[in-house]
C-alpha cells in the first residue's frame, strides 16, 4: 500500500527576486508538519540553495525559465523537490566543488560559490540529484518528535 501524503506545488519564474517567496511558503508548510524553529531555519536555507543553483546555473541567458518546487508532506518527513526543465549543470563539476573550507587552502583560492549543495547536505537528512532531464534536486528532512529518533550525522541539541 502506498504511503499517504499531501502534495503542494509552487511554480516561480527562475528569477532571484522570487526565492524569498518560497522561503515564506516553506516556513508555513514546515510549521504545519511540526518542525522546530531551528529545523525550519535549516529548511529555508536548503530550499533557497537549491533554487539559487537553478536560477544561477540553469537559465543563464534565458529569460523565461521556470522553477517548480514540490513539497511532499508525510507523517514523519518532508520531501522537497526542486526541478527545472531549462538546462542542466555539469554535476561532476559541481560535486568537485562541494565541501567545507580546509585550513590548507589559501584565501586566494577560496571559491565564492559552491557552498550551496554542501549546505543542503549538512542541513537535510538526505539529498538526491537527478540530472537526466533538466535538474531535479530532491531533499528530505525527518521529523524528530521529542528527539526519539536521531541520525548519526546530526548534532543533538538536547543534552
Amino acid at each position: 500500500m502506498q504511503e499517504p501524503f499531501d502534495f503542494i506545488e509552487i511554480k516561480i519564474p527562475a528569477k532571484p527576486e522570487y526565492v524569498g517567496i518560497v522561503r515564506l511558503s516553506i516556513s508555513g508548510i514546515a510549521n504545519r508538519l511540526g518542525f522546530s524553529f531551528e529545523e525550519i531555519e535549516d529548511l529555508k536555507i536548503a530550499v533557497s540553495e537549491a533554487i539559487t543553483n537553478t536560477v544561477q546555473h540553469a537559465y543563464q541567458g534565458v529569460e523565461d525559465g521556470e522553477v517548480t518546487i514540490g513539497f511532499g508532506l508525510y507523517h514523519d518527513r518532508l520531501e522537497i523537490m526542486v526541478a527545472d526543465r531549462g538546462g542542466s549543470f555539469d554535476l561532476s563539476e559541481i560535486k568537485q566543488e562541494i565541501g567545507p573550507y580546509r585550513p590548507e587552502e589559501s584565501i586566494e583560492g577560496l571559491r565564492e560559490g559552491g557552498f550551496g549543495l554542501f549546505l543542503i547536505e549538512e542541513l537535510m537528512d538526505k539529498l538526491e540529484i537527478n540530472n537526466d532531464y533538466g535538474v531535479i534536486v530532491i531533499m528530505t528532512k525527518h521529523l524528530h518528535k521529542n528527539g526519539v529518533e536521531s541520525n548519526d550525522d546530526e548534532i543533538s541539541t538536547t543534552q
Partner: protein
Amino acid sequence: MNLSIDVSRTDDIHYVKLSGEIDVYTAPKLKETILPLTEEEGVSVRVDLEKINYMDSTGLGVFISGLKSAKEHQSELILMNLHERVYRLFDITGLKEVFKIENTVRGGN
C-alpha cells in the same frame, strides 16, 4: 524581504550596518557596496550583521570576495554581531577559520 545597507565612516573605519535578508536577490547589491570599501589601503571595513535575520551561501560568497579584496588591497574586513544562526554557516563550512568575527549574539531572529 529586502536588504537595507547603511554605510558610515569614522576616520579609517567604514561601518556597514545591514538589516534584512542576504540571498541570491540581495547579494549583488551587498557585493557592490562592500568591495569598493575594501579597496582602500589601511582601512577597516566593519560589517554589522545584528539585524540580519536570514543568510545563505550567497552571503558567504559576498564576504569571501570581500576578504580576498581586503587582502589584496591591505585593508581588513571584520564581521560583527552575528546571530547564532548566521554564525553557524561560518562554522559548518569551516569559514570561521579565515574570517575575523567579533561578537556573536545569542538567540535567533
